[in-house]
C-alpha cells in the first residue's frame, strides 16, 4: 500500500507500524516527532500504530533557528 511521508510517496507492507517506518527510512526515532494524519503520535504508541493506505506521515525534527 502507499503512504505519504514528508511529502514523498512510499510503498509500505500491509499492517506496517510507525516503528516499521523508522526502519524503512533509517531514522532514529529519538530524534523526531511523528504526526500521523495530523495527530501527534507519542513514542509509546509507535509499535501499536498501524498504517493504512493513503495515510499521511510527517517526521519533524529540530534545526537551528532564531
Amino acid at each position, binding site marked *: 500500500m502507499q503512504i505519504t511521508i514528508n511529502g514523498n510517496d512510499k510503498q509500505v507492507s500491509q499492517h506496517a507500524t510507525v516503528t516499521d517506518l523508522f526502519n524503512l527510512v533509517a531514522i532514529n526515532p529519538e*530524534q*523526531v516527532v511523528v504526526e500521523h494524519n495530523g495527530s501527534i503520535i507519542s513514542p509509546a504508541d509507535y509499535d501499536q500504530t498501524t498504517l493504512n493506505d493513503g495515510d499521511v506521515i510527517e*517526521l*519533524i525534527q*529540530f534545526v537551528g533557528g*532564531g
Partner: protein
Amino acid sequence: MDNLQIANRTFRSRLMVGTGKFSSHQAMLDAMEHSGCDIVTVALRRVDINNPQDSLLSHIDQDRYLLLPNTSGARTAEEAIRLARLARAAGCEPWVKLEVTPDPYYLLPDPVETLKATEVLVKEGFVVLPYMPADPVLAKRLEEAGAATVMPLGAPIGTNRGLLTRDLVAIIIEQAQVPVVVDAGLGAPSHAAEAMEMGAAAVLVNTALADTPDPAAMARAFRKGVEAGREAFCAGIGPKRQQASASSPLTGFLRNES
C-alpha cells in the same frame, strides 16, 4: 547584573541567542558558550527522509540551556499552534517563541494572528513569548492574553539595522507589566546596549552572531554590550542636555575674571 525573571523562572543572562545560520555546529556552540546565554531558540522542520541529519538537540546541552522553540515559517495562528504542540511533543518544556510572519520578504509579524495564537497557547499551558511589531496597544493586549513577555522588533529580521523602532519600544517598556525582550534587527553590541539602557529586560540576537567571521568574539561583545546597557540603566543615566556642562572648573583660570 540583576537576574531576569520570565514566567516562574529566573535567568542570569539577559541575552538570548538564536541558533540559525551558523557556518557549523561548532560555530553555533562557540557563540552560545561565549554569549553566556541561558536561553537558545530553535526551529522545527520536516526531516529530509532522503538525507536525514542528526537532530540539533544532539548537540545542545539541555541541562545548561533552556530550549525555546520558535514557530518560524508559520503564516497563520493555526500553523503556529501546530508547531508549538509538535515542539512540546518532542520533549521540550512548554515554552514557545511565537512567530507568525505571512510576508516572506520582510518577515514582519502579523498582529492579529499573533494575538489569536497567544490566546490559544496560553490556554494550553504554554509560556508564550510573542514576536510582535513595535505596537504598544498590541503589547497590552498580548499581556492581557497571558503572554510571558512581549518581543517587539527593533528592525526586520536579519537586517542589522538596530533599534529603528526606539520611540515606540520606549512606550512599550513604559507601559508593560511583563518583561520586554527586543528581538530582530540588532546588528551590533551598541544596538543591544541601547535597548537595555531604555529599560528592555533582555534582547535576542542571531544573525549578528552568525553573520561574522568570528562568532565567539561577537558573542562576547554582545554579552558585554547587554551587561553594559543593563548596568547603566540600573545605575541611572544622566539626562541629555542642550547646553554644554563643563567637566573641568571654568572659574579661577590664570586670568583675573570680572
